[in-house]
């Protein structure tokens, strides 16, 4: 693969496994993607597909000792993160690379003030004075839309609503001016109206700071609002990747198509909503062939035996599906008529 200079993050052939009772879970199985400067990549998939594990792997937060990056490479600004010592990795965590977690109700320490939690990272990492950190934190609170910062700094997490807490978590992630933010389902735990506000906040922050983002979500609505490019994950693999336009209008993988069909759309009659039958495969023993095979309406014999390679649909749009193989041309015709 060619390495382009504007790529901030390049992930190749990433494999992550967890030891659990009853064997090893192959949570991420050969994931590859990249993120350019100022770009938002959405990683979308249902729960358990490995999207969160992928983000934790990038952050260097795979819980040890039971979790392990088995193979692959994660290059951030040209530095190979998988080869870094824990100490060196900590210098990148929270400074150049930060993360926003799913549930703002539990992501903040209940016994420490907001001020202490906001400033501790920058004081520790950048060795700036507490006074400077304090001012910086107030500025950050202002930026995420929380006024009256001086008073807020003294308060505890339980004194804020869910939406406000998520703003605080975002301020915390921004305080060291990172170049990449990973947001793991940042709106899932919030009310719908708050969700929209938070997504708007992300948009505004990105315009102001030019930060790159990886948006982990299961919500195609969030994808539509925030993403430049989209990676669709299923059972530990990326099954389709392309621009937002490619995914929403030219979905080529049956799973992506099924996901799109499963969205509730107010502008279409309700019988067009099609849930995806069945459940994802057991990642204790991943299937030999395509992992979507069991639930795929267009499964072929080959899908049961061999994993499909990533095939270029056009330009940067790729999908891992045997239907895109030229030997399946005849069948694809049939399927498209279906």
């Amino acid at each position, binding site marked *: 693969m060619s390495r382009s200079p504007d790529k901030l993050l390049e992930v190749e052939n990433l494999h992550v496994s967890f030891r659990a009772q009853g064997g090893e879970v192959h949570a991420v199985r050969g994931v590859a993607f990249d993120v350019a400067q100022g770009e938002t990549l959405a990683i979308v998939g249902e729960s358990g597909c490995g999207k969160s594990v992928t983000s934790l792997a990038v*952050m260097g*937060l795979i819980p040890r000792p039971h979790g392990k990056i088995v193979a692959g490479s994660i290059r951030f600004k040209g530095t190979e993160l998988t080869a870094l010592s824990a100490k060196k*990795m*900590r*210098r*990148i*965590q*929270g*400074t150049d690379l*930060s*993360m926003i*977690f*799913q*549930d703002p109700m*539990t*992501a*903040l*320490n*209940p*016994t*420490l003030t907001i001020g202490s939690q906001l400033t*501790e*990272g920058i004081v*520790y*990492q950048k060795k700036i004075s507490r006074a400077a950190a304090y001012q910086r934190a107030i500025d950050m609170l202002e930026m995420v839309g929380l006024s009256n910062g001086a008073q807020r700094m003294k308060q*505890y997490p*339980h*004194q804020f609503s869910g939406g406000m807490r998520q703003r605080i*978590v975002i301020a*915390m992630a921004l305080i060291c001016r990172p170049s990449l933010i990973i947001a793991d389902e940042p709106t899932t735990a919030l009310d719908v109206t708050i969700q929209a506000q938070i997504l708007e906040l992300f948009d505004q922050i990105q315009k102001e700071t030019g930060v790159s983002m990886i948006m982990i979500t299961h919500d195609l609505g969030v994808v539509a609002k925030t993403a430049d490019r989209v990676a669709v994950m299923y059972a530990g693999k990326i099954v389709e990747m392309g621009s937002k336009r490619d995914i929403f209008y030219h979905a080529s993988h049956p799973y992506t198509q099924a996901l799109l069909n499963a969205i509730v759309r107010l502008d279409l009659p309700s019988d067009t909503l099609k849930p995806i039958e069945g459940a994802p495969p057991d990642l204790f023993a991943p299937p030999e062939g395509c992992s979507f095979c069991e639930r795929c309406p267009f499964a072929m014999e080959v899908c049961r035996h061999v994993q499909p390679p990533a095939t270029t649909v056009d330009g940067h749009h790729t999908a891992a599906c045997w239907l895109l193989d030229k030997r399946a041309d005849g069948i694809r015709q049939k399927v498209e008529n279906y």
Partner: protein
Amino acid sequence: MLRFVLRRFLAMILTLWVIATLTFLLMHAIPGSPFNNLNGKVLSDAAVKNLESHYHIDQPLPIQYLIYLKSIATFTYGPSIKQPSQTVNDLLGRGFPVSFELGLWSLIVAVLSGIILGLFAALKHNGLIDYVAMTLAVFGISIPNFVLATLLIQEFAVNLHVLPAGTWQGVSYMIMPIIALATGPMAIIARLIRSSMLEVLTQDYIRTAQAKGLSPFIIVMKHALKNALLPVVTVLGTLAASILTGTFVIEKIFAIPGMGKYFVDSINSRDYPVIMGTTMFYSALLIFMLFLVDLAYGWLDPRIKLNKEGK
């Protein structure tokens, strides 16, 4: 905050009142005058008179009750039956400093060693340290303090002659009683800290702290330990109580001239004024400890304080 303190303080007074009333009722549940025939010992008429007038036995019950409450509030219990020349206050004044020293040191040793043991066990979860620490803890809980005390005396005083077997005259005299008294509470704290630490370490806010790139030491000390300490604080009152009652036996075994020894002696000789006086004193002490624990909890966990205030 003030309202919270006030509320707790009132609860404390109420509890003391319940204990006082209970004590009063129990004493009057004994048929006849409680002072006529004490455990088969016949008292002199003068002594009985003395006691009866002090407790106003001749008055009707409600009046007696009020007088009794007043004597508790002013802490005047009158003379001991066994040693009429001494009042209960004299005994407490002499015994309490010694018991306080023993109890406080034991509590400090138990809390510190328990926290350290539990912390290391949690951080090395399923490792050798964890295994050793928890085996130690289960043994600590299983062995009654009087058994441990006798084992210690047998080994270090009788066999090895390295530590004095009894009395209370300096640091070397304190080692064995403190170990005997602190081991059980230490084991309880170690187990509590371990399990609450293990739970805290899986919390989301710990991952948030890790994502900031903080060092593991800061994460444990600043983010995890404070939260893991909360359950320990809640049992601190109970532990203080168990150390306090533990002093009864330990002082007996090591012949330490503390309050516990007087208390045990008074039980054996059915010296009611002393029993009542010490019981009330101990109760007040323990309830005051619980009150302090409540305050500490409010300080450690900002959520609690606000909830109570907000009501």
